């Protein structure tokens, strides 16, 4: 039996912008467009971030900012730029990326662009956790973070278990998640009404998602999480892509469906939780970034690195708007992402309907 290439087999053509690259044991099919656009988006995000350092109540020209970063500026400039603005910008860059990776993972698992952590109850759960901690224990930042982490992770677990029936299906996760999200939303409103006024105001502003109070201690755990989480997600992303075509096809191609889903879900939840714990539930970045990346970079299906780049740009730009649009007052960044994302969601649902997809 001969199964070698028949002599008549001619080289098929590839779509433009895909190149095979081989270096020793390493070989990939390079998606040129996706990588190039990702690089441009990262540069744009860094640019917006750099510009953010120069604006605020006290505007500093770029020269002063560079001097402050280099350690040559006066004490006030250094404090404002390096201690106050820089951690916020870095958090926006990393946090946007983390939210987007979480969103991409969730959307891939549920095979649905609506399958993002904010839709399926994670954000409401984190908020519930933070509220309960504030109500019964302490209103401190650490307490809020811990409560949010616990609340988010527990909600994620609850959704997974409730949706589990000999494996989980994407639609069940979304439907169960929306149900739990509404339940928790009602519960959260009820808790807010029972709180003292100043307590309720601070809880509500956290609940909107804000980067106002971000400082270096908030950045560190997020950075560590990304350094570990991003490579792990990338390592699993090939299997993840196979599973998008259906459980049967995926398993036929040698993917262990259920363990993979568990691992990815856990990674997604931890990445989103690290942002939420410090900044509160920031709406829609996880939902919109992966889908925007798909459309701009014309990849088939969500991809990790393009999503991360888009998320970083989205959150950094949103935070810049939040800081400047009603200056000197500041909006919570969650309000800006909610406005941007809400419009996007309407458009997404409308185009869904037109295609007649379910």
């Amino acid at each position, binding site marked *: *039996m*001969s*199964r*070698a*290439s*028949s002599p*008549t*087999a*001619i*080289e*098929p*053509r*590839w*779509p433009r912008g*895909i190149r*095979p*690259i*081989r270096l020793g*044991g*390493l*070989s*990939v*099919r390079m998606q040129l467009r996706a990588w190039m656009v990702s690089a441009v988006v990262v540069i744009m995000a860094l640019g917006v971030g750099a510009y953010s350092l120069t604006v605020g109540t006290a505007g500093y020209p770029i020269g002063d900012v560079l001097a402050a970063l280099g350690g040559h500026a006066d004490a006030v400039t250094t404090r404002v730029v390096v201690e106050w603005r820089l951690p916020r910008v870095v958090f926006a860059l990393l946090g946007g990326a983390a939210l987007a990776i979480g969103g991409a993972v969730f959307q891939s698992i549920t*095979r649905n662009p609506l399958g993002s952590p904010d839709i399926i109850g994670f954000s409401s759960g984190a908020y519930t956790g933070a509220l309960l901690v504030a109500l019964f224990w302490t209103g401190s930042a650490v307490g809020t973070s811990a409560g949010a982490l616990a609340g988010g992770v527990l909600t994620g677990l609850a959704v997974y278990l409730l949706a589990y029936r*000999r494996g989980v299906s994407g639609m069940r996760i979304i439907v169960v998640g929306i149900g739990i999200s509404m339940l928790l939303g009602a519960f959260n409103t009820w808790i807010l009404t029972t709180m003292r006024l100043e307590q309720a105001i601070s809880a509500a502003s956290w609940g909107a998602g804000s980067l106002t109070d971000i400082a270096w201690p908030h950045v560190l755990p997020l950075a560590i999480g990304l350094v570990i989480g991003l490579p792990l997600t990338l*390592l699993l992303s*090939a*299997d993840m*892509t*196979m599973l*998008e*075509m*259906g459980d*049967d*096809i995926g*398993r*036929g*191609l*040698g*993917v*262990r469906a259920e363990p993979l889903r568990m691992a990815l879900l856990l990674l997604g939840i931890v990445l989103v939780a690290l942002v939420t714990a410090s900044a509160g539930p920031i709406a829609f970045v996880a939902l919109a970034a992966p889908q925007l990346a798909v459309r701009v970079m*014309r990849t*088939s*299906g969500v991809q990790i690195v393009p999503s991360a780049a888009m998320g970083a740009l989205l959150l950094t730009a949103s935070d810049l708007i939040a800081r400047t649009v009603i200056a000197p007052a500041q909006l919570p960044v969650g309000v800006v992402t909610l406005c941007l994302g809400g419009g996007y969601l309407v458009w997404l649902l409308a185009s869904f309907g037109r295609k007649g997809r379910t």
Partner: protein
Amino acid sequence: MTGIVDSPGLHARELSAGYGERCIIDELSIGIPDGSFTVIIGPNGCGKSTLLRSLARLIRPSGGQVVIDGRDVAEFGAKELARRIGLLPQTSTAPEGISVIDLVSRGRHPHQGPFRRWSAADERAVADALHRTRLTDMSTRIVDELSGGQRQRVWIAMALAQETPLLLLDEPTTYLDIAHQIDVLDLCTRLHREGRTLVAVLHDINQAARYASHLIVMKQGRVLAEGAPSEIVTAELIDEVFGVGVRVIDDPETATPLIVPRAPGIDYPKKEENT
């Protein structure tokens, strides 16, 4: 090409399987002859898909075992098994906007590692799979825009790129019009002649009898008959399995058995009346 074993020797020993509590196949033993084009037929709900899915390890058996290369499939690693058995399931979703060649390339997944994503062997296997399914000229087309029959060829090409000695197809002709059904079955025959072992679940008894080299007839989770179509397809068997009275005649094209349902006492519209 590595990993191709010429005698897969796929068989099931006293296999029981089902979904949850409900047992669909019960202590079933069959062998898939090496190099055969085996077709499984039977009424709806007789367990033919369950059998195929158990053979592919998509269902964990509640009893008995499936053996390939002399080993229980349960012992295989996920990718290891995927290098031996290619699978065309009933339902699969093509990612939005994916090109034909991109989708076919995904069949190489079981041969790839985290850093070896596109070897020379991958490239050759994909070119070969496209060629065999006559998709080379359509390689850059978007899968969503193809016809149902072309799309089915793309999925088969993906399974071919997997380069497995065994190919399992779960109702590959369902939802296709007659031209595309024949297209897919002819393709299966070509692959069979090239030396692959194929196992397919089909609905059409006449197509099964025409294309299969080995036929497995199932009813209520049991195998009622097994063998070459010309030896086992009789009016009695069809009546027993499907509860339909038929006449079995020779297919004028291939001399394989052809079943014609009987028409007792029903006033069928007559041709002459259509004026």
